[in-house]
């Protein structure tokens, strides 16, 4: 039994988590769900006894209030930090990892242990790859190996920080199978955080995190049941509401059809309850006419090799004007490499590339097109030591936009994208959602015809993500900008016009979104559709 009483964690005087109390029974899987920075990791770290915290944690008969006191329960804890393969050593083989973790935990090697070890290995499906080095494993296999190493000393309390983030859908299901089986067989307490709402149904109990607080708790059916009355089909209303995509959230009664809520809906209802209404984001229509169905980018058999390893192999891809193309895949599937080759940041090792009907052969061909391309890199990299306004002025000036026009543009965009309050702050101090929109504004300052976005929604909370997709649609409809976007959230496929699915550097699916549903009429979600391609 684990009981947490009034847990609070602060980083540099800023409260990361406050007044957290909950109980978990043996054999139970407790899930932490929430965006980056909502306090999930802080809570997990505190329970694992690796950071300082206030409050009290009771584990069976032990009570601890500090990392030092937690020492006595450490042999019962299995802790896996956030990040793929973080506990692994790239140059060691799977077998060497197991031996190392056995030795470092000082585990007695007897028949019972060997049986247990082999059981774990077969659950993870790793027994055939004992001689393979960790550096050569896929992201999913790395996470499975990390989990096996974490469970080697038979922990009674498993603390896993986002073990499935960025892992391909099939491996995610396999990871969950291991977790569910071990909870049942060994009666372990598991506390698992995740960024995927879809995994909630596999948890016995869920704590929903938002800004360091728990906004809802219960199992997934209970949670969805609770908010049912607030979720409607899209409708115009004067009452306080949030409308996103084809759903309207309102706390008061509306004369409209109810919609079946999802777990994401919880965040919108919570925002309404806390009176955090969303700013209306709109982009002015461009005066130029928009011609559709022109091929903007055409890649044929694009290949990239790093040593013996193919990061991309014979990938074909086409982007038409006024289209949102989603490039989906797990971490390490080759999404970023692909986008970097399209942008010319990495040379092609094979294949051909056409941009705006011109074959790209050398850097001169590219330089002519640079002003037509916009790019938002992973983690929104902009200059950290300049304010938002200065950053925007800098890029405007680089793109030879006149100063007066630039000031006007910045003014417009900051209002349209809802970050005018933050214009004179440093990018680092901004919430990720604001950073995301400000990076988008920077990338469209020079009115490009095509926009490349590398994982812009990763780590951003559900509301900001939904808003961001709305914005992209606006850009597409009102400006006719073609958009190529990468993401590891399979569920985001529904916002795209067309989807290209990558696995281990190769294309495994490429179709319009509606066609996917036609092909798999029984599938409930895109997660399930794509799973078929990974099998």
């Amino acid at each position, binding site marked *: 039994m684990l009981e947490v009483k009034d847990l609070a964690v602060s980083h540099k005087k800023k409260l990361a988590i406050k007044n957290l109390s909950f109980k978990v029974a043996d054999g139970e899987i407790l899930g932490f769900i929430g965006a980056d920075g909502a306090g999930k990791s802080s809570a997990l770290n505190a329970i694992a006894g690796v950071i300082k915290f206030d409050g009290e944690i009771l584990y069976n008969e032990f009570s601890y209030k500090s990392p030092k006191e937690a020492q006595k329960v450490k042999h019962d804890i299995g802790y896996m930090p956030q990040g793929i393969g973080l506990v692994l050593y790239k140059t060691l083989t799977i077998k060497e990892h197991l031996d190392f973790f056995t030795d470092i935990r000082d585990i007695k090697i007897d028949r019972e242990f060997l049986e247990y070890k082999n059981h774990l290995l077969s659950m993870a499906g790793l027994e055939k790859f004992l001689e393979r080095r960790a550096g050569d494993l896929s992201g999913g296999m790395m996470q499975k190996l990390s989990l096996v190493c974490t469970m080697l000393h038979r922990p009674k309390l498993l603390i896993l920080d986002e073990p499935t983030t960025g892992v391909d859908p099939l491996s995610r299901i396999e990871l969950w199978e291991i977790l569910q089986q071990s909870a049942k067989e060994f009666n372990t307490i598991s506390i698992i955080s995740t960024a995927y709402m879809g995994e909630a149904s596999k948890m016995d109990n869920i704590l929903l995190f938002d800004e360091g607080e728990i906004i809802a708790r219960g199992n997934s059916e209970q949670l969805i049941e609770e908010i049912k009355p607030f979720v409607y089909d899209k409708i115009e209303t004067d009452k306080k509401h949030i409308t996103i995509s084809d759903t309207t959230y309102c706390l008061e009664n509306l004369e409209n059809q109810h919609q079946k809520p999802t777990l994401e809906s919880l965040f919108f209802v919570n925002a309404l309850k806390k009176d955090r209404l969303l700013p209306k984001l709109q982009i002015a229509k461009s005066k130029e006419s928009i011609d559709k169905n022109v091929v903007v980018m055409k890649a044929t058999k694009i290949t990239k090799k790093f040593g013996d390893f193919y990061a991309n192999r014979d990938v074909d891809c086409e982007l038409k004007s006024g289209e949102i193309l989603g490039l989906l895949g797990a971490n390490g599937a080759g999404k970023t490499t692909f986008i*970097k080759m399209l*942008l*010319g*940041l990495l040379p092609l090792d094979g294949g051909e590339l056409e941009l705006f009907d011109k074959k790209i052969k050398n*850097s001169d061909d590219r*330089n002519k097109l*640079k*002003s037509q*391309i916009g*790019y938002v*890199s*992973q*983690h929104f*990299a*902009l*200059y*950290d*030591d*300049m304010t938002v306004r*200065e950053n925007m002025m*800098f*890029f405007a*000036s*680089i*793109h*030879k936009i006149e100063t007066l026009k630039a000031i006007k543009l910045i003014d417009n965009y900051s209002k349209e994208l809802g970050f005018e309050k933050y214009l004179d702050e440093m990018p680092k101090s901004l919430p990720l959602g604001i950073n995301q929109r400000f990076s988008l504004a920077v990338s469209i300052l020079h009115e490009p015809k095509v926009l490349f976005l590398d994982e812009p929604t990763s780590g951003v909370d559900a509301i900001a993500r939904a808003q961001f997709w709305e914005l992209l649609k606006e850009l597409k409809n009102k400006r006719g900008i073609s958009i190529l976007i990468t993401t590891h959230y399979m569920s985001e496929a529904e916002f795209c016009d067309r989807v290209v699915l990558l696995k281990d550097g190769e294309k495994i699916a490429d179709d319009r979104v509606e066609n996917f549903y036609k092909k798999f009429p029984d599938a409930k979600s895109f997660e399930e559709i794509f799973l078929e391609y990974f099998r």
Partner: protein
Amino acid sequence: MKIFLTILLKELVSFFRSFGLVILVIYFFTAEVYVAANGMEIEAKNVAVGVVDKSAGGMSKKILSNLHSPEFQTPKFYKSQKELSDAIYNKDIMVGMIFDEQFEKNYYKNLNPTINILIDSTTASQSLMAIGYIQNILMKFNNLKLPVALKMHKLFNQNADTGLFMGVSELLSVITLLTTILTAIAFVKEKESGTWDIMLLMPVNPKIIILAKSLSQIIIIMLGVTISVGLILFQSLDVPINGNLLNFFILTFFYVATTAGIGLFIAAVSKNIMQISQLSIVIMMPIIFLSGAWTPIYAMHPLLQYISAITPLSYYIEGCESIFFRGTEFIDLLPYFGGVLILGVILYWYGFRKIGKLF
């Protein structure tokens, strides 16, 4: 041109906003130079002397009265040779002098009087200097009629104050190290934070980016040099300026551009700031040691002398010392300008090409 200025301004703004870096640069240009000038002492100064005097005491007192500050501390007296050698062993004193019973008698009888001297040679140069001084003092008491009289004229640095040279040398070394590191950081910081890709995608000629970025760092260094020369060299250390200060600044500008070239090279091959610091030390230390900053070039092994001829710092140091101390005219400085310029063009061109390939 507007783009060039925009990038230049952006680099300056981001430098002055990174508090740690500003403090580091200020420290190197002020405290570091000052400490090197005052802390590194090659001359004997403040030497502790111990004495065992078994003689009658008249003559020995006369001799000892010549051991005074700033070179020597007031001598301490010990009862026996044992106590004296213990004191040296314990590092209480550096030089021990023993006057035996016969000393005074022998002195007046011209019977080769001897003073035994014990010396702690772990501080080799200081103790040798101290012996030199003591010998000089004893010369006065020798009744020898020297056939040749030495009359010394110290040129350029009348007090033979090594601190001045040390200060200038250190400043030149600081310029060398900081220029490479700052230039390299200006580029690699972007690699680390991921803005490098964005920079590559801007519709700007890469040459403009490289020039603007390196010029911004050159400006920062020149500012630092101005502060250091004004505040530390002239104000605190009282370094003379016998030549034209403008020549110094022009020469420095060329030299800084040269080192910026090395910085560009380092930036091209480093992935992060850690690698910059390792590489700059590996590359710059030999340049500094071989340049004649700490040892005159003519005292080196012949092979090393050839190598030092291709380090830009050696020309720069000679040039600067000529300007500060010798007051050399511009026309006679031309070899130094030439050396720095030729090597500078080669190094900057090489670094420029190397980093240009990344674009």
